[in-house]
């Protein structure tokens, strides 16, 4: 369906990534945000708190990130599209209830504007070092969906994808921005509301007495009932059966956890979103995301001038990882090069998919700034040898 026009600020704007992300959420139909201030993400909720009273949304600044995350999970059970926003330290605190959201199959969006870590790290400076935490941060087996914008425009655009995927797969979706994109101001074009397709909350049509909150038919996604509609359903963070009742058994654990993982893992190709450039016939393929994807393009241009056949895959959705595509390429190229603002995270995933056929070369930048394009060029030249 088309989105609610009330949330859409159609026009050309000069916005930073944080503001664009906030606008993206509102355009995607988000009407409940709970947050706790943390640099460099705060501008997202500042934007939202400015505009929400005029578009029927409710913002509450909670007492901490634990509460913010719990609140958006609670709110989502009323059918409202809900979101919270944070950075590394707060993201760590949210892990508990991100797990709850995954277990209860609650659609919601968590924005992490990444800064340098560990711990308090570099509050005002860029990092991309939460990528594995995004994948594995909460305990237990589950799969997650995580997006990575490379510009304020994409911070706006991909927000719709984030909310839509959360609804389609009934899962928390992580929006892994970085400080550089968050604090970078550029032109952002916000389209007309009738150009923005959103996935609304799909409510069950079952009769209350027949409804089972975790019953699935084929597609692995159970039907949703919201609080207050007379379904008197139960949901829990405990391992549960299709009625939502706790069942402490191996069988129940196997059925539930497999489904939680498989609903995303088996749909990875469907979910995957990446942009390719010059990959066919390339000797070296870069795998990039976020701000690093932009800087890497300069390195690629420099390497191409030296005659190297180099392609790039830019991940707009990092999790689930486009495993199939990377495996395909592994048989055809000489090496992968993975520049990232950390000491090696996504490169491990590339390496896993390359499965020893070709090397995956990390171009690390420790954070606080972005790569030097020459470093990326040099890594490409080295890889092409």
């Amino acid at each position, binding site marked *: 369906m088309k989105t609610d026009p009330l949330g859409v600020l159609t026009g050309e704007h000069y916005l930073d990534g944080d503001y664009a992300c906030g606008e993206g959420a509102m355009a995607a139909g988000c009407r409940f945000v709970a947050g706790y201030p943390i640099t460099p993400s705060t501008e997202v909720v500042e934007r939202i708190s400015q505009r929400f009273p005029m578009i029927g949304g409710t913002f509450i600044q909670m007492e901490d990130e634990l509460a913010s995350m719990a609140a958006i999970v609670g709110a989502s*059970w009323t*059918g409202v599209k809900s979101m919270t926003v944070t950075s590394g330290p707060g993201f760590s605190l949210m892990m508990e209830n991100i797990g709850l959201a995954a277990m209860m199959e609650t659609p919601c969006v968590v924005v992490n504007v990444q800064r340098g870590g560990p711990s308090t790290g570099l509050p005002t400076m860029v990092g991309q070092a939460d990528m594995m935490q995004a994948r594995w941060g909460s305990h237990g087996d589950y799969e997650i969906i995580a997006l990575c914008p490379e510009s304020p425009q994409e911070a706006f655009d991909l927000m719709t994808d984030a909310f839509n995927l959360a609804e389609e797969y009934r899962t928390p979706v992580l929006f892994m921005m970085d400080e550089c994109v968050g604090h970078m101001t550029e032109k952002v074009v916000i389209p007309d509301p009738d150009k923005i397709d959103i996935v609304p909350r799909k409510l069950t049509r079952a009769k209350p007495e027949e409804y089972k909150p975790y019953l699935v038919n084929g597609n692995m996604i159970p039907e949703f009932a919201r609080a207050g509609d007379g379904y008197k359903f139960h949901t829990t963070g405990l391992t549960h059966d299709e009625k939502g009742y706790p069942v402490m058994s191996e069988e129940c654990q196997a059925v539930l956890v497999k489904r939680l993982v498989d609903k995303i893992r088996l749909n990875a190709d469907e979910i995957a979103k990446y942009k390719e450039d010059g990959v066919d016939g390339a000797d070296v393929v870069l795998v990039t995301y976020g701000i690093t994807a932009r800087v890497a393009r300069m390195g690629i241009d420099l390497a191409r001038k030296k005659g190297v056949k180099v392609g790039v895959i830019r991940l707009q959705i990092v999790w689930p990882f486009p495993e199939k595509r990377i495996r395909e390429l592994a048989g055809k190229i000489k090496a992968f090069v993975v520049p990232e603002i950390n000491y090696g995270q996504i490169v491990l995933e590339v390496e896993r998919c390359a499965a020893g056929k070709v090397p995956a070369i990390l171009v690390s930048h420790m954070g606080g700034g972005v790569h030097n394009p020459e470093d990326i060029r040099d890594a490409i030249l080295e890889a092409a040898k």
Partner: protein
Amino acid sequence: MSKVIERTIDATEHPISPYIRMDRMPHIWCPTCGIGTVVKCYATALDESGIDINKVSIVSGIGCTGRTAGYMNLDGFHTTHGRAVPFATGLKLGRPELLVTVFSGDGDLVGIGGNHFIHAARRNIDLLVILINNFIYGMTGGQNAPTTPITAKTSTMPFGNFERPFNIPHLAASCGASYVARYTSLHVRRMTKAFKEALSRKGFRFIEIVTPCSTLYARLNKLGTGLNLINYYEKSSEIRNGVDTRDIDISFQDKIICGKFIDEERPTFLDMMHDHYKRTLGDRYVPMSNEGGMIRE
């Protein structure tokens, strides 16, 4: 002159059954545990207050009391440890017409969840919070709680507790809760009346129910059976409505001051928000509808 028999029920089923997921009975609570009594009184209060049950949600955290949300036949959310209050806050703000009750144990509510508790009370979020206080962490095996009275033994204070416990009604009152009461699980009628009254009020309503834990608290402290604990409540509880909450600390096996301490109407978070935005933004303010912020197809 005979009264009409109002209740026409199946003599084989308990009248509470519409409110309980009978397919999950028996519950996991130990013999003499008071949680079941509190649940019964809450169900009775719902029944007698004539509230639309479809609009009632129950949220609980982790621990023995945390299981309450799973046993009541309402929209029920069994969440994470300590986070029932913020979860319930989201539920209430996401669909303001809901009537949201939080059932929480003492460790859950004011131990791990203490920060959420004080802030929800401060904001006067429209929640009914029922605390079941048994002075101990029950489900994990009798560890020290933020409510354990001084000298009482717990599995992590084997020589007796020396930490000062919370006086939780006072904590709630000083943070601005609009309704504050305390009873023991023996006070079935007063408790039910308090639940009914609190269901009809708005804002952050807090009711503490002191309940027996014979499996751990009584055993570790050689206090006998659950029945002995209930007898202690009978002997040592004193109803003092309106008393200053500063004076109602609970010492080990000492007096338990019960009653209704606070009952004041104050604007809730949502009232304040609506009024403020109406005043500052005028016609530009678009409030979330009472039915919630869900965007319909």
